[in-house]
């Protein structure tokens, strides 16, 4: 119980740190009219390495964290993060999930899926979808590059933070050893 709670708190602290860093990056990029979004990084570690309930709690709370500062319905990101988490959790047994590369690739796929989903849901509401579509494509490209660049560091940070808090997730080998 306390082990799971520690895992949730540690991963949420990491998500908060990443959110603050990306927020500052977006602040600096504002004159260029480009934004970076890295939702996949918030989810991939939890979905690949944590048990279902703990990981889902991390995904939903990270979504609520984003929802609190965004002008969208409170719970919207949490719902989509939850769905993305479940989809990745479903297939993780077929993946070498301890590998950093797999974590980064999973984050890239989640980014892409959420970008497409939000575009499909909201693009029609914009006054000029054509120019917004081009910007979305550029932002997707920049976000994917940024995710690939900092992904290994962030996954290592999450792993290191969990080790520091003595809340490492159980590996299959560890469980049966």
């Amino acid at each position, binding site marked *: 119980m306390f082990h799971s709670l520690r895992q949730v708190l540690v991963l949420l602290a990491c998500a908060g740190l990443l959110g*603050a860093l990306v927020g500052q990056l*977006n602040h600096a990029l504002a004159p260029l009219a480009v*934004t970076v979004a890295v939702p996949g990084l918030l989810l991939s570690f939890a979905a690949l390495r944590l048990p279902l309930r703990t990981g889902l709690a991390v995904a939903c709370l990270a979504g609520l964290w984003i929802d609190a500062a965004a002008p969208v319905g409170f719970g919207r990101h949490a719902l989509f993060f939850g769905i993305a988490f479940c989809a990745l959790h479903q297939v993780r047994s077929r993946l070498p999930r301890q590998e950093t590369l797999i974590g980064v690739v999973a984050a890239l796929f989640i980014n892409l899926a959420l970008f497409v989903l*939000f575009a499909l849901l909201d693009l029609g*509401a914009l*006054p000029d979808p054509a120019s917004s579509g081009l910007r979305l494509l550029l932002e997707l490209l920049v976000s994917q590059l940024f995710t690939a660049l900092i992904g290994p560091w962030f996954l290592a940070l999450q792993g290191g933070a969990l080790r520091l808090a003595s809340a490492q997730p159980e590996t299959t080998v560890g469980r049966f050893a």
Partner: protein
Amino acid sequence: MPRLDQGRPFLTLGVVLLAWLILPTLFKRSARLGFYELQAPMDVAASYARDLQDFWSQKTRSKNEVIEAARDLARLNASYELRLQDDARLRAEITRLEQLLRLPSYGEFRAEPARVARRDFNVWWQRMVIRKGSNHGLRVGSPVIYVGGLVGRVAEVHATTSIVELISSPGLRLAAVFEGDDRPVSFQGGVNPALRPAEALLEFVPLDLFATASAPRRLVTSGLGGVYPPGLSVGEVVQLEPSTDGLFKTGRVRLDPRLGRITEVTVLVPLDPAFAAGESPAP
């Protein structure tokens, strides 16, 4: 049984969703507020760190540069003194004419300067967090201005921070007029191409108004609705073409590129609270 086990993540998510749906609204609002107030100190701390960084970079300037800057400021102050005197004379004239013609007066505002803590400009919304909130008397709906004209309006007020919705945001509409014309047109933000300044859309423009990229027309606030004071610069109209119904024109407004680099704004806090809510002013 294995099939049920495969669907366990989605089943759990469904249970969480169900629990979320039956949670009282009060709990959700409190949770949102709690999450926001947890994030706010990070933005504010980063903003103070940037200010400190600026301070130390300014300290590297030579004495000669500082003396030159002080001299330029003294000149500016002198010209502003003259403008202030002129402003007082014009205000007295407006009051006299309002009394003479029995016109309702425009709302009075208190200016509250604030530093920008974080800019959040994406395709879906264009907002910024400023370092003043309800503790400084800010109210939702107050207009926000900067050196280039209108920035937007206060969308949310928290204890020590507020969120400003920019005029480039798709959700913001206002009544504007062409400079030198008194017929209102509908302004809506939300055209935010990458690597270029933001643009906005105009609707219900009278057919006898013209503007092109080579001969743009300035767009200012109309003062209608009571939220924004009249005469604040909104942008430049660079394109007008007949609308599909042929009764009006539609167009594009180029917004000031400085809007994306804003570091300090002024919130106009209405002295009469009815103005902020967009209601008609008290008699």
